[in-house]
């Protein structure tokens, strides 16, 4: 076969001669791609937009409460229902972003696509987690901060310290939730192999984790056992921080509960992907 025979294709192709970026930031590309793929789902888009609905409702409530002195005492209670609803939206976001994140890569052999390119194992894991984390933070931290700003502007008694406390609390709550939900869903995905199965298991796990903690706490009378379920732990942490009256011990245990789940998820993912760890 002569070389001329081979010229049956478009001859416009020339090898890329431009510069290539340093391999250090590949996790951002992986995370962006995960989010881009999730964004293709119309349900994901709807949920993303709907997740800002409660913010509007609660912002109106904050303004109304500030206008009427008699409602001022109810302000502390605004955070709890707000956090509960946003957690639900976070669960849905995680469902769309994380359910196939690792499992589908394992099923289709896509790990070779990543690891035959300048992507390290840590960058891969970080990128996968970051996509889920961004989804969680997008529906918890972002509307939470906006609501905190509303409340600070609307409530005459709220000072800068109050605002900073809300901000810090929201950061801790959202960060722990992102950490925990991210690694748990990646573990579920890695174990299930198929996105659909992983999604179902994830939703069940989210609701069961409410019941486990609550059940154990009620059965034993030890309030801190609410930390055993990650969703219950997050709700109780929100109650301790933003509901007022929580002790440092409670904050510690509910944070530890979520960190434990995150660690468990990470260990499961590492075990499932162990043959790629040296890459």
């Amino acid at each position, binding site marked *: *076969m002569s070389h001329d025979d081979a010229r*049956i294709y478009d001859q416009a192709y020339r090898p890329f001669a431009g510069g290539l970026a340093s391999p250090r930031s590949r996790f951002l590309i992986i995370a962006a791609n995960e989010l881009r793929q999730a964004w293709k789902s119309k349900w994901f888009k709807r949920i993303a937009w709907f997740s800002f609905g409660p913010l509007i409702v609660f912002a109106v409530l904050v303004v109304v409460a500030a206008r009427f002195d008699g409602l001022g005492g109810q302000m502390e209670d605004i955070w709890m229902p707000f956090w509960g609803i946003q957690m639900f939206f976070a669960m849905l976001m995680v469902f769309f972003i994380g359910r196939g994140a690792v499992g589908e890569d394992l099923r289709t052999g896509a790990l*070779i696509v990543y690891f035959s390119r300048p992507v390290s194992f840590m960058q891969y894991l970080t990128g996968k987690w970051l996509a889920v984390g961004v989804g969680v933070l997008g529906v918890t931290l972002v509307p939470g901060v906006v609501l905190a700003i509303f409340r600070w502007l609307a409530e005459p008694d709220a000072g800068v310290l109050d605002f900073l406390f809300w901000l810090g609390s929201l950061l801790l709550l959202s960060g722990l939730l992102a950490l925990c939900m991210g690694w748990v869903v990646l573990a579920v995905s890695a174990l299930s192999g198929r996105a659909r199965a992983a999604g179902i298991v994830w939703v069940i796990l989210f609701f069961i984790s409410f019941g486990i903690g609550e059940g154990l706490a009620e059965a034993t009378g030890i309030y801190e056992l609410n930390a055993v379920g990650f969703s219950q732990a997050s709700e109780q942490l929100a109650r301790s921080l933003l509901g007022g009256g929580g002790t440092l011990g409670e904050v510690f245990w509910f944070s530890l509960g979520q960190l434990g789940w995150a660690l468990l998820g990470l260990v499961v993912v590492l075990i499932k992907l162990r043959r790629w760890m040296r890459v």
Partner: protein
Amino acid sequence: MIISCQNLDQAYKSHRVLFGVSFGIESGCTGLLGPNGAGKSTLIKTLLGQLPLRPGRVQVADRDPATEPLRVRQSAGYMPESDVYLPGMNGLELCAFCGQLSGMRRADAVSKAHEVLYFVGLGEARYREVDGYSTGMRQRLKLAGALVHGPELLLLDEPTTGLDPAGRDEMLQLIDDVAHQREINVLFSSHILRDIEQTCDHVVVLNEGRVLFSGSRDDFQHQESRVLHVKVKEGREQMAAGLVSSGFEVVSREGTGHLEVALSEGQNADAIWKTARELNLQIRHLAPATVSLEQAFEKAVDGEGTSP
């Protein structure tokens, strides 16, 4: 030298796969030839830094995969043997994502993905989901993904696996085009001799984890040949008789006018020239008989081959 290996060992747990592999590959298209289980894929994975460091020294595009695996993978494009894809993505998205993973800016990656997909013949199918691609289309897509960032070196692991004859020919044409028209260095692993014969200038022959030969394809075919073609101006029969009396095994080939002279151990072409001089005959042609790559490969693998 684009790839250099010295005394490379590789093993999966206690099972050794490569034994002191040493070879060097110059620029161009090189075939990595060996039967199934010879260690070709393991060697490619080692070159990409996907397997842990073992005794030996490897350089790929002047970089050590053991210490700079990410840099090596940035300068190389890899087309794996297995069917790999990211579900839910179309051809263009997947190809552009491969470019981004290799370090291209998104705009460059998308632009180049269009170009390379047309090049591999997937221009019309680039917006279709990869899940619905045929085997041949996926093979082309893998090639496009390996090419999109303009690698110095292209590592192709059994690129014609699963293709029908027409698809195979087209894939070989593409590889030939990439290596000889686009001047990208190619290491092409295959157990199909015809594929290597059609596209490669150099060969590395691997069997049971050991290199049997490394060098140009012509040298391989000629080295494996211990037969010379001899043509004299006149007196063909006289020359044949002279060679036989000098201890050569001669086979006359009807029609071509050549004498086929088999060299035994210790014999070389000098004795043929000497015989012709003694008989006062004029040699018009004296060259090693070219054996097919298949014959050469069979000899090498059967233990008759030459060492590198």
